């Protein structure tokens, strides 16, 4: 019975871990303790995934956290992804910009993200939605004047989305499904920074500690809500409008990403573009497209978060990094450069990684229903690839000067190795991963 609600178990464990970490005297020690504990939790989640895959379905276990069926495997998989994101956000968080308090905030955000997986009730989801936002705003406000101003901006964006989520949940409760779905879709559009409601994300990435930004953005809680609540709208006019918004976000995000002159903002636009891809994919009524979107969601969580956190580690060594001229040296930090390049390309479909599988399924699945949009996605992916290589060249080439920066520490290398291995193993087991990347209820809705 201990595995009945794995996401909830992990959420509670992360909250407890946050309390333990808050007692650490230095950020360095806090980081080490947190990463070790997350590794243990990851092993537990992986065990849960294996049990749910190989154990026969148990009819006595019901509910969102139940294992022993397709949805149970899906939840275990999502928990594993969340734990890897947590490992990245904590393990690569620079100690200078991420004091113990911020690390605790990251763990709380990830606990809330995991808790999403334990429920499908709209009101509870709205409550978790609010809790995540409040944790982020609290952490930002505690980090000084800049954080206070940033939290004000975020509040202006997210307060309406929170209200819409609550209204949408109430509408579902009283049976107004269409109203509820529209309210939730708009709320999700804000939370996932789709075009028009995206302005907060580049600001968060450029001003906030990157670990905190990743912990808030990468779990893509809005899309979780979409998957568990809103598949009924698939194929409707609203869904097509949302799909169009997703495509526009993907293409314009990719274009603006290529035109940025500051590394953090360029990666913020990469994230925006990829959330656009996922938003588009989730509106597909084909199982292929939906699976592609779900895998893109995982790839964004692992690969894109990995790139962002590698940048955070690099900035901790070299200061704020621009893209207007090449200013790094591959030879000085080769493992960091390889991580950046591998994860960056994996996020845009590098062959032999999960990113390639996600991209392939997304394109193939969407072309029947949205032929024009499918080709736009190909273009967006191409531009994202250019954005990644441009960032790589600007950050890791162009000079032979050495300011004494060191390559990845052992902890950082361990975390990045785990994430890169997950992307490669995920590709090797793509058939199995694709099979459990969506809950059964969603797959059964395909044509």
């Amino acid at each position, binding site marked *: 019975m201990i595995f009945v609600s794995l996401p909830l178990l992990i959420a509670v464990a992360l909250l407890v871990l946050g309390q333990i970490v808050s007692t650490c005297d230095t950020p360095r020690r806090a980081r080490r303790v947190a990463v070790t504990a997350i590794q243990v939790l990851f092993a537990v989640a992986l065990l849960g995934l294996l049990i749910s895959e190989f154990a026969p379905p148990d009819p006595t276990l019901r509910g969102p956290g139940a294992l022993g069926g397709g949805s149970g495997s899906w939840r275990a998989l999502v928990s594993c992804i969340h734990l890897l994101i947590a490992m990245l956000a904590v393990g690569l968080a620079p100690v200078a910009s991420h004091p113990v308090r911020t690390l605790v905030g990251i763990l709380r955000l990830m606990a809330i993200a995991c808790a999403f997986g334990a429920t499908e009730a709209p009101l509870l989801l709205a409550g978790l939605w609010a809790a995540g936002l409040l944790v982020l705003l609290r952490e930002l406000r505690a980090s000084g004047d800049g954080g206070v101003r940033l939290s004000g901006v975020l509040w202006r964006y997210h307060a309406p989305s929170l209200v819409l989520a609550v209204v949408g949940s109430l509408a579902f409760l009283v049976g107004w499904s269409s109203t509820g779905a529209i309210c939730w879709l708009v709320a999700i559009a804000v939370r996932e920074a789709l075009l028009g409601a995206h302005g907060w994300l580049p600001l968060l990435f450029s001003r906030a500690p990157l670990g905190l930004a990743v912990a808030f953005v990468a779990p893509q809680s809005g899309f979780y809500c979409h998957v568990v609540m809103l598949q009924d709208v698939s194929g409707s006019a609203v869904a097509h409008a949302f799909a169009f918004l997703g495509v526009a976000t993907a293409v314009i995000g990719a274009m603006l990403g290529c035109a940025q002159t500051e590394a953090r903002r360029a990666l913020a636009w990469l994230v925006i573009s990829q959330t656009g891809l996922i938003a588009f994919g989730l509106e597909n009524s084909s199982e292929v497209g939906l699976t592609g979107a779900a895998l893109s969601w995982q790839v964004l969580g692992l690969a894109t978060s990995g790139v962002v956190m590698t940048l955070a580690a690099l900035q901790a060594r070299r200061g704020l990094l621009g893209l207007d001229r090449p200013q790094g040296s591959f030879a000085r930090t080769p493992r960091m450069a390889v991580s950046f390049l591998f994860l960056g390309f994996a996020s845009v479909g590098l062959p032999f990684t999960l990113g390639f599988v996600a991209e392939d399924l997304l394109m*193939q699945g969407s072309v029947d229903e949205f032929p024009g949009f499918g*080709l736009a996605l190909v273009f967006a992916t191409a531009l994202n690839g250019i954005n990644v290589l441009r960032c790589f060249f600007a950050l890791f080439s162009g000079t032979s000067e050495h300011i004494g920066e060191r390559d990845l520490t052992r902890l950082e290398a361990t975390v990045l190795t785990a994430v890169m291995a997950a992307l490669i193993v995920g590709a090797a087991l793509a058939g199995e991963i694709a099979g459990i990347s969506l809950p059964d209820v969603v797959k059964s809705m395909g044509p």
Partner: protein
Amino acid sequence: MSDQILAGLVASAVALPLLGFVMFALPAWFGARFGERFVAGSVGLLFTCSSLASGLAFLALVFSGRSAIEVPLGEWFSVGSYGFHWTLIGDRLSLPFAWFAAMLVGLMAAFSRRYLHREAGFFRFYLMLVLFGTGVELVVLAGSLDLVFVGWELVGITSALLIAFFHERPKPVEHGLRAFITYRLCDVGLLSAVVWLHHAVGHTDFVSGQPWLQLAVPSEGHHAVWVGFLLLFASMGKSAQVPLGGWLPRAMEGPTPSSAIFYGAIAIHLGPYLLLRAGSILDQFPAVAWTTFAIGSLTALHGSIVGRVQTDIKSSLAYGSMTQVGLIVAEIGLGLRVVPLVHIIGHAAIRSLEILRSPSLLHDHHYLEEAVGTRTVRTPRHSEGVIPRGLRSWLYRYALERGYQDGFLREVVVGSFLRFAAVLGVIDSALTGWIGGRDAVEEERPR
């Protein structure tokens, strides 16, 4: 020779380079260091074996009178009705190409051991060379366009990284990025064609045709024409065809062995290879065939004119390559099939030798003059007697300006893109300011 042995030979032509990459990359990530002799020897051996495997398979194919060896390696992943299959084919196009490519990579590995001796990036060069070789073998032995795309991407990435091999200087990095941008944008053509073919035909396998296996032609003409044009666009980027070839002379910034194998021998011929596989579409749709012929002819003319005024040997050879590849593309457009293959192998052999000898050009020249005992006469100016005086100066300027293509791409294409991105940036900034308030705009300037 039994079918299983033949299949094993074809599979090992791809598997050996891939094994080599894994064998080097994985230990290197964990800090292992390899000696130059071991690295060069291993790479040379692996590609020699790969070459032998392809050569033996080709001989067996010819003497058995079979048209192709199909090697199904299983399914990578499948969702719903869509599946990604690993299928290799050995036929009269792929096996000579695979044999020749592997042999050249092996020779380049042997040559580079001395050429790059004690170079800081010695191991990086070999790692990229092995990955490139894997990509090429995948492209040429792929049994479907899906698999071609996997190898195609690997070739593009390794090409850009090797152009920027001397990463401490800004120019090679800039040129590597430029080549990658061209590749990536043209990859849109290949990926779109893959998706389109799945949509129109249901698969992208090379199925039948003479003298080798070719793509299945969609039953509806407009689908076939679009797929043909998309494949042509993809091959234009990889093969530096007009007006996308400006990256080619700049790509010579990389180490000479990589320039030889990429831009003299193999990578640049992958475009024609793709067109040869798409011969079924070219045969049935004259619009695609004549466009192919026109682009090839224009490229040959352009390369020939511009190459005459180059003042350095590598640029001159780059334009020489462009001219020959243009001719090959024109031959394919004219409906020839075996002639272009012979032309590819002949040109690749001679051009790679020329590029490899280019650093010792002056030495070779002196040696030649000493051998003949007199000063060598300059090449006769055939063209000056034929071209009218008025046209001559125009052509001279055209050649000096490299056909005005760089200016056109810089000012019109890239300039328009950046202007559009700037407009989007202004709109984005205004929207963010409107929603997020003054705090959002203070640091949110259009970039």
